[in-house]
């Protein structure tokens, strides 16, 4: 009996499994690399890095916006919740959080905050220790990335916005 049809069918079936596993694992691999890069720049997890306005030399994260000043940290809620805080400037501003699979699971912008300052607590579950009056967001993965974006409307505004974004903070509770 010829066995080669069985071999071909077997190779195709196993190849399909590898294909699916690669597609599923790919975002985690890219995100892990980004997490590692930010953690190194910031000096660890739950610490913020404040990069310069993106230029052609920026090679950390793909497709950066050259019109935004970023602040970023790697959150790690495996031990305890993490408190995110930042002043909110008078320009487009947002705080966004990304899970280990790249999903943007939470975002809030300056218009939604309706205040000059924001505080958010990221936690592994709803029962985590929190602070009264501070919203608690459940992170779908123990580690991920927090990104603060601030629009720089003109060169003259850079210094003022830079001062504010450098007050953005991620710290364990």
């Amino acid at each position, binding site marked *: 009996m010829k066995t080669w049809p069985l071999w071909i069918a077997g190779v195709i079936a196993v190849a399909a499994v590898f294909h699916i*596993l*690669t597609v599923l694992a790919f975002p985690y691999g890219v995100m892990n690399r980004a997490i590692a890069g930010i953690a190194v720049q910031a000096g660890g997890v739950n610490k913020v890095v404040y990069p310069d306005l*993106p230029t052609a030399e920026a090679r950390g994260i793909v497709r950066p916006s050259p019109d935004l000043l970023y602040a970023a940290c790697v959150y790690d809620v495996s031990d305890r919740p993490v408190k995110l805080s930042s002043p909110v400037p008078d320009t487009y501003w947002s705080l966004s959080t990304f899970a280990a699979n*790249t999903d943007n699971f939470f975002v809030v912008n300056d*218009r939604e905050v309706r205040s000059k300052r924001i505080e958010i607590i990221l936690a592994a579950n709803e029962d985590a220790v929190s602070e009264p009056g501070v919203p608690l967001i459940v992170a779908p993965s123990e580690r991920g990335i927090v990104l603060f974006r601030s629009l720089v409307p003109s060169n003259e505004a850079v210094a003022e916005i830079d001062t504010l974004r450098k007050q953005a903070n991620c710290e364990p509770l």
Partner: protein
Amino acid sequence: MKLALKLAAAFTVALVLGAGSAILLIRSGGLGGDVAVGPWETDLTIGSVQADPYTRARVAVAGLLALNRNETIYFTAGRDDEGDRLRISCSYKVIGSDPPARWWSITLYGEDHYLVPNPQNRYSVGGETVQRNEDGSFVISVGPEESNMNWIPTGDGQNGDTFTLTLRLYNPGEKAARDPGGISLPQIAKEACAS
């Protein structure tokens, strides 16, 4: 022994075929999607928890840390109005008026998805910086030579011979959020190419 060798060979072929086809598909996917306005394309599940595994993988390569559609819609163009690839040796006019969003910008990226080096350090034109005509419309020049105030240089080819433009709509207006395929976006007209 012979069977073990056959199994090892079949396993290796399956691994190369499966993982290789996946990586090829992911890397060639870009940020396009099922919504198109002229040469601009987007996938509305970018950044969202509704994204399918292929979209997540594509975004990881070409748009990591993208916001979800409620906050920002990302349109990307890799071709002009005639369907030709955008090339650094050609000059283009991006002609339009302010898209329906609180803030917008058009940014040029090389084939590697990073900003393209140029002596002027100019990478984008946005709603805060664009020079408008009296009627509110604008013309953005994209090409190797400066031709007006709204100029985005295509660089010297360090990032490849082709490029893409990304149009970001931050806090999109109600119509854009409801029906992004039905809004008006800038045209991309090719003017000339260096021989």
